[in-house]
């Protein structure tokens, strides 16, 4: 069953077609990779799903409900969370509060309840703290809870972004180059984390990644974009030998050399 259904999605900036007629079906509880050379339109694609950009045409449906035209915060409320290619943490506030900020939509008491110090508001706040701590344990950052997020190491910041995204209790998690800039050990740990998230939390994961070893090892299904178009899709072993993919990455002559 497809949890996310993208049909003929296009986006153009002026005359430049960043995405054209992309159709994808993302299976529930799968790990799906979106790959392609630089400038292929992968991040644009993510930005359309999360409501940052409005598609020029096409439709995006999460569990049958369209996401087109929703603001990013409304999309997040529907159950899509994301991390960013260039890390976007709340740098000056503590690690724990970063994660708690992700729970915004799940804390229901309003300002009046907070000011009157109603038991419900207090209880929710306590629970949010504990839940945030659990999430930090989950990604292995619980010992850093009081540090400012910006002071963390690069790998830790990436994990914190994942914890913060999980705090929104998503059904689909988009990871934009989660392993960029990581050393092999960190990449291995990240791969394990992504797999645990999928199996334990039943979250569908879509990731953009350039590390082919990671992509081939982790993905159930892969979509390949080039110049804004989908040029291939399939299981990892199918993609590895797809002539159009090799051409997109290595150029026209590459096949004859191989």
């Amino acid at each position, binding site marked *: 069953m497809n949890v996310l259904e993208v049909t003929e999605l296009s986006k153009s900036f002026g005359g430049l077609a960043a995405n054209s007629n992309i159709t994808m079906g993302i299976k529930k509880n799968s790990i799906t990779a979106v790959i392609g050379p630089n400038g292929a339109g992968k991040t644009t694609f993510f930005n359309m799903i999360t409501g940052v950009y409005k598609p020029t045409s096409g439709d995006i449906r999460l569990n049958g409900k369209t996401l087109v035209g929703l603001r990013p915060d409304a999309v997040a409320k529907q159950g899509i*969370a994301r991390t*960013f290619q260039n890390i976007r943490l*709340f740098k000056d506030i503590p690690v724990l*509060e970063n994660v708690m*900020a992700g729970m915004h939509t799940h804390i229901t008491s309003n300002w009046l309840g907070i000011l009157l110090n109603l038991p419900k508001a207090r209880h929710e706040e306590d629970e*949010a703290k504990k839940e945030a701590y659990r999430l930090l344990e989950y990604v292995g950052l619980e010992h850093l809870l009081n540090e400012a997020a910006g002071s963390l190491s690069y790998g830790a910041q990436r994990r914190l972004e994942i914890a913060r995204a999980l705090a929104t*209790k998503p059904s689909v998690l988009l990871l934009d180059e989660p392993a960029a800039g990581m050393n092999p050990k960190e990449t291995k740990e990240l791969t394990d984390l992504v797999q645990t998230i999928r199996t334990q939390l039943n979250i569908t994961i879509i990731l953009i990644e350039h590390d082919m070893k990671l992509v081939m090892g982790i993905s159930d299904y892969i979509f390949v974009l080039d110049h804004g178009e989908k040029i291939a899709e399939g299981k990892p072993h199918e993609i590895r030998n797809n002539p159009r993919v090799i051409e997109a990455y290595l150029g026209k002559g590459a096949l004859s050399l191989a």
Partner: protein
Amino acid sequence: MKALISSLSENRLAQILLFSVYVLITSASLFLAEKSVVAFLLLLLSILILYFLNLKTVWKWIIGFVILGVLLPVSASQGPSYQSYMEVATLVGIYVAMALGLNIVVGLAGLLDLGFVAFFAVGAYTYGIFATPQAANFMPFGSYPLSGGSFWIFLLIGCFAAALFGILLGIPVLRVKGDYLAIVTLGFGEIIRIVFNNMDKPVNITNGSMGIASITPPSIFGIDLLYPNQFYYVVFGIVLFTIYVVRKLEYSKVGRAWKAVRENEIAAQAMGIPLVKTKLTAFAIGASFSGMMGVVFAAKQTFVDPTSFTLLESTTILVMVLLGGMGSVPGVILGAAVVTILNLQVLTELTNWMNQLSLSGVIAIPEALSPVKMQRFIFGALLIAFALYRSQGLLPAKNRKYNPEELKNKTEKSSILLLSKEKRQA
């Protein structure tokens, strides 16, 4: 000396002892001396010392409450300048509440607002118009001025009126960020002032540049509030309320949303935080404190006119926030106190002193160099010095520390998994 300080910072008993001696001496000298600005300022300083003491927060609050609520008014009450001390203390309170309001907008939500005094004006005029015959010019029903008892309701009305203006300002300016936002808010502040200046025709609502005079003083249980020492308690109460609200919101869902928007708008939105609503809340709540204090200001001065609400006022409040430390509640309180006291007490006293000196012929100082006239220069110099050497302010914002022991999961570890499953099924 260093060893002495470090051993003192360990020893709680010695701290309490020394602090009590300090407070006793300063309050006694304020009580006994005819006119002693120094003793008055030193007694106020005790609050800052209290902040640094190694005591439980509850005790600090209680002690601070006693010093400001009882000790300060009582020990100042003997001298002839009692009312002028209370006037200064009242104005400090008014500015503290306003600076705390601006701190929400600038420090927590990261929205630079250069027209903050507009909300103060809205509050002041709200009470000013209805507590004088002015309202009869355009209100078809009711008899004006309203009685002094209505002041207490007007505290709330002023609060809501300012919040409403905060939202009205917010809606158009939310499209712009950073420098552009600063310019638009600056324009808004000026527009409000000019509108109040011109709303005397065709219907005379604000009495234009003449201002509104003889505003009914507030009354409670049949007593009219006329003197600064009475207003002092009104302001004291509002400031306590303001601190409570700011503190409570800062570490809640609302405050986290503000900080998230300040730190990174795109990420905040991706976490489900609605930008427009969050910014509007910041504008509205920040403005409401200012509106409330506007009502008090109008009642205290018994006169309002547009000249009280110039751009200089907006910048002064901003200076308080910057000087104290953006986003830091204790810092902003200190900043507001320092700037107000510098303005009202230190510079005036220095000028008086220098005038006396030149009168008695000791030195000759041209009038153009008197400290009061150099107010803007002094603030400018202060700001530059702070930007260079202490850009985070006097008391920088500190993040709350969480105790991991309290957060550790006592039940089973998988509850997060359960939670996310529930969500999916729902």
